[in-house]
């Protein structure tokens, strides 16, 4: 049994606004092993980014309320750490790549300076040494060193995302949170960036949580998958289990909604309806209003997780346990 690098237990996050309470993340459990890549899949508003931000504790402090749970990273509960201790972790042992490389970089500093800044923040080393390491990082993500003194606007979208990745990996973090890192890029550039991330994660032995809505990227890149819906994880397991024998009706619906290159069907089978309003969630199963199989039981009581295969957990009343 490999060691868990990250373990999230019973995490619940709410956003309080003037009129409403938004139930963004509702009692989720999640584990990431050392060296594992987890794909966190779901649609807009499912709570994917909120989970990632909770791990780094960068939720908006005025609205976000942490209701329960613990996040154990390398044996420590990050939710119990002081702000000073947390700062030593952020960008150093846990790093994050944001979706939009255009806004993640400072437009008035050179890219080299921005990477070196991250290194200097966490290591007591001389400026010139930090610059040298930043150069190495640029080379590693496939950008020639002589572009060290250029500004973000001189780079294309794909190149900017490489700079952001170089910055995130500069301190050799144990865990990388990648929030839709390739969504803003063209497919041929996406293929280049994913290929680069793949070789880097093996070289640096980094665990990755990849947040995405693209099931193709998950199949290509991830070891395990967690499917989020309305703030819950409705299904999780190895990528093979989830793709080969999806257990939750929502996961099945997602697969049915995808246009495929190798199919000859003339009609897609979408999931009917919309995601429930996160201020007013159904009291039973969150998916019951859109589920073709929903029964009275689904409307009344929230389902518990059922282990359909070893390590493959499905949160549905209709799921059958193994054996």
């Amino acid at each position, binding site marked *: 049994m490999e060691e868990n690098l990250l373990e999230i237990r019973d995490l619940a996050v709410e956003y309080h606004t003037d009129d409403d309470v938004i139930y963004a993340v509702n009692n989720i459990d999640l584990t990431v092993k050392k060296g594992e890549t987890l794909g966190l899949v779901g*649609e*807009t508003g499912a709570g994917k980014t909120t989970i990632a931000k909770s791990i780094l504790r960068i939720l908006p402090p005025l609205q976000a309320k942490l209701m329960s749970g613990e996040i154990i990273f390398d044996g420590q509960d990050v939710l119990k750490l002081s702000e000073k201790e947390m700062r030593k972790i952020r960008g150093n042992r846990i790093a994050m790549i944001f979706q939009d490389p255009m806004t993640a970089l400072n437009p008035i500093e050179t890219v080299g300076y921005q990477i070196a800044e991250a290194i200097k923040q966490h290591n007591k080393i001389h400026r010139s040494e930090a610059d040298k390491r930043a150069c190495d990082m640029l080379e590693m993500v496939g950008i020639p060193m002589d572009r060290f003194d250029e500004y973000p606007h001189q780079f*294309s*979208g*794909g*190149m900017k995302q490489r700079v952001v990745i170089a910055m995130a990996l500069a301190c050799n973090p144990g865990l990388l949170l990648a929030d839709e890192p390739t969504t803003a890029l*063209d*497919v*041929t*550039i*996406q*293929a*280049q960036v*994913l*290929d680069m991330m793949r070789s880097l994660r093996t070289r640096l032995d980094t665990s990755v949580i990849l947040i995405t*809505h*693209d*099931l*193709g*990227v*998950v*199949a*290509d*890149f991830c070891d395990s998958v967690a499917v989020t819906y309305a703030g819950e994880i409705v299904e999780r397991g190895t*990528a*093979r289990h989830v*793709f*080969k024998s999806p257990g939750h009706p929502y996961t099945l*619906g*997602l*697969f*049915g*909604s*995808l*246009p*495929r*290159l*190798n199919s000859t069907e*003339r*009609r*897609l*089978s*979408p*999931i*009917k309806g*919309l995601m429930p309003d996160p201020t007013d969630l159904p009291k039973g199963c969150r998916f019951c209003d859109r589920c073709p199989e929903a029964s009275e039981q689904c409307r009344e009581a929230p389902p518990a997780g059922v282990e359909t295969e070893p390590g493959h957990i499905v949160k549905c009343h209709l799921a059958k346990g193994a054996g």
Partner: protein
Amino acid sequence: MPALLEVRDLKKYFKTKGGMLHAVDGINFALEEGKTLGVVGESGCGKTTLGRTVLHLLEPTDGKIFFEGKDITTPTKNELHDLRAKMQIIFQDPFSSLDPRKSVSESIMEPLKLRKKHSKADMLKEMRELMDTVGLAARFENSYPHELDGGRRQRIGIARALSLKPKFIVCDEPVSALDVSIQAQVINLMLDLQEERGLAYMFVTHDLSVVKYISDDIMVMYLGQMVEKAPSDDLFSDTRHPYTKALLSAIPAPDIDDKTERILLKGEITSPVEPKPGCRFMARCRYAADGCEKPQKLEEHAPGHFVACCRHKEI
């Protein structure tokens, strides 16, 4: 059967500081009634400019456009007014393409109002029918765009485009901003409408799996030029152009046993400002050879399947 829309050697250049930007550079195609032409390519390849030039939202630099057999390259003001009713557009971003101060019903009725041919009662009736057609519940009639989600907003965009009973609609990335489950709903709606009304679509997108699904013919663009055009199934089963091959292989399939070998392209898209006369894909192409420095001619590889690559037979 004469084509509904025909475009001959269409060019659209923009003046920039560095010289002429060749956004659309010599595009030819014909589209029949009730058919869909998919236009794919990466950002900056000129696909949106092409759609807009065909609709006269941008004036073409050179070339000819025919609609219903008539030359519409330089329409008079009155002709353009009539054309607008027959040719419509659905925009990518349902958040910025709707007037935030107009209710759903006002947005859908606006094209009818501008035609000044309908009484108020007619317009209301028409608007309700349209809402029903695109699957918007009547209770949203007086809602404003900010109250609705992306899928519903895109339905308003579709209803508005349909209101003047067009024959041809340019769909500029209509589902790219939507989540997959909603995307599937909207694609199905567009297919239904095409069957019922015999609409012709020009479907502009970067998403190849969506385009395969909806198109009869697919055109692949690279830096303003067409590199390959073929019937939808042919393009995927018998891919000829090295760029199309790389593009197709780059799409990760939602299948855990997918063994497609990715063709990783070197570098990135080059600049369309004052391009050299040869093949524009040459700098990134793994098959580049001497002949590639000359302008590439479009050859018919199979019936209806055109390729602009001098080495397409060898590779």
